[in-house]
């Protein structure tokens, strides 16, 4: 594989950029693989990469219905953080933070990881107490957390509404300085390029039609490009998990819902952190191009539409304007929607299933992007070793029936209100 560097850039510039190698090939599927990963999104591509890199399993295919990176890894708001209270979520995400910090070097692809810090605003004394508890839990797990008072927040984001007579005054906030953002598409492309170079077949425009199962063992898949055999198959299909589960006669603790995001017209640099509104559900950062990147609540009813509805967007942006009044002057550039695999406790599932050789990676709700490297790393381990790694032991499929839920928000099973 051709290494990307300033020297290769200069060399190719002299040749008119006509001799670059393709970043990944377009192979026809073989009849059999050691492992098939269904879903060519961030998690699927990362899984294939870590299967090859960490476990030396390179006879791997990624089967993608559309094109790689065309789902949620291309539709998110690029936020990376590990500001969780529960041990399972905190330790898993913090492991991921280490992978993020080294990702550009590891993949030889600039993923533009920008640890600019995230601030969760608090709007009451009670919320400050909750945040100090969460911050302390984070620090016990080795995650950086700083509790900010009103004046400290004002120094960082003076453009927020600090007037006295607002409905939700800013009391302070919880900051994770090491959190940040990354270039989402580059993450998919970087993993794809490295996986391809180690022998993984990336098969796009190939839909999974069914599964071949005999005596409780997986034998292979049926696709629009023919049947493919494999003893181990991993599902990484996020919002399409329920559709494939139906083909497997499985019911899962997951519902599929729609989340919207949007960007404003580009403006000069004003916001150099990620900031979330604490009295509702709104988050905001500024992209390198200058757009304000914003998101918030789910549309609120089961949906596979991949496009949103205006009342939710209006509601979310009303919260945004309450936090940052200057947003009201901006024109909207783009809005879009993605379908989320909302689990019943808000935490993901990375586990084996009752079918031997079938592995499940789903339930990321709307926190899937930041989990991309850790999810791929632990899922690769789960598939290769046929048992979960200690980092994803808690993300078991049977925790719902055994009562070991990881309910970070304490919202219960109403997935559409989270």
């Amino acid at each position, binding site marked *: 594989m051709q290494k990307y560097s300033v020297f290769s850039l200069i060399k190719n510039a002299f040749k008119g950029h006509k001799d670059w190698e393709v970043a990944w090939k377009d192979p026809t599927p073989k009849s059999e693989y050691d492992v098939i990963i269904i879903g060519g999104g961030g998690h699927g591509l990362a899984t294939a990469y870590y299967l090859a890199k960490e476990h030396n399993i390179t006879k791997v295919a990624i089967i993608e219905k559309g094109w790689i990176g065309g789902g949620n890894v291309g539709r998110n708001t690029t936020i990376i953080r590990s500001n969780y209270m529960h041990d399972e979520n905190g330790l898993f995400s913090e492991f991921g933070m280490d992978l993020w910090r080294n990702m550009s070097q590891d993949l030889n692809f600039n993923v533009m990881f920008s640890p600019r810090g995230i601030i969760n605003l608090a709007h009451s004394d009670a919320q400050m107490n909750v945040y100090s508890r969460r911050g302390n839990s984070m620090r016990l797990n080795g995650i950086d957390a700083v509790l900010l008072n009103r004046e400290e927040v004002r120094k960082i984001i003076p453009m927020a509404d600090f007037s006295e007579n607002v409905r939700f005054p800013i009391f302070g906030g919880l900051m994770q300085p090491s959190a940040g953002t990354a270039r989402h598409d580059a993450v998919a492309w970087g993993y794809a390029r490295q996986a391809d170079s180690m022998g993984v077949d990336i098969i796009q425009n190939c839909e999974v039609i069914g599964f071949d199962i005999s005596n409780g063992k997986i034998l292979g898949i049926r696709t629009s490009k023919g049947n493919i055999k494999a003893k181990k198959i991993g599902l990484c299909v996020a919002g399409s998990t*329920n559709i494939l589960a139906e083909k497997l006669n499985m019911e*899962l603790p997951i*519902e*599929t819902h729609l989340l919207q995001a949007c960007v404003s017209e580009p403006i000069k640099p004003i916001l150099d952190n990620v900031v979330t509104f604490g009295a509702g559900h709104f988050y905001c950062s500024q992209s390198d191009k200058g757009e304000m990147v914003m998101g918030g609540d789910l549309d609120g*009813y*089961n949906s596979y539409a991949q496009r949103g509805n205006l009342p939710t967007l209006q509601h979310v942006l009303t919260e945004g304007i309450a936090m940052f009044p200057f947003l009201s002057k901006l024109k909207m550039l783009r809005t879009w929607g993605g379908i989320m695999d909302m689990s019943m406790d808000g935490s993901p599932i990375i586990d084996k299933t009752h079918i031997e050789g079938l592995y499940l990676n789903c339930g990321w709700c709307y926190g899937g992007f930041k989990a991309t490297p850790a999810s791929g790393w632990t899922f690769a381990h789960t598939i290769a070793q046929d048992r979960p790694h200690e980092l994803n032991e808690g993300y078991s499929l049977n925790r719902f029936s055994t009562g070991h839920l990881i309910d970070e928000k304490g919202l219960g099973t*109403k997935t559409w209100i989270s």
Partner: protein
Amino acid sequence: MLYIKCPHCGLRPQTEFSYGGDATVKRPELNKEVSDQDWDNFVYLRKSPRGKHLELWQHISGCRQWIKVERDTLTHEIFTTLKANENI
């Protein structure tokens, strides 16, 4: 904007309603032996189909009645609406 025909009040915008989830889920009957699996099915497991979905909505800013709505989860087309105690 979805427009939902409340069986009690007529056609109203979605913003008057609150969502209540899958209407096909049945609570295990009282005073009967209920297995863990039955509880699991009721509390956690969902089909979440792509296509026709029978779901509960509450007309919270109107008559406050719970209703059933049959809606397509891909196109958002609404086929039928029913009172909560009616079945398709």
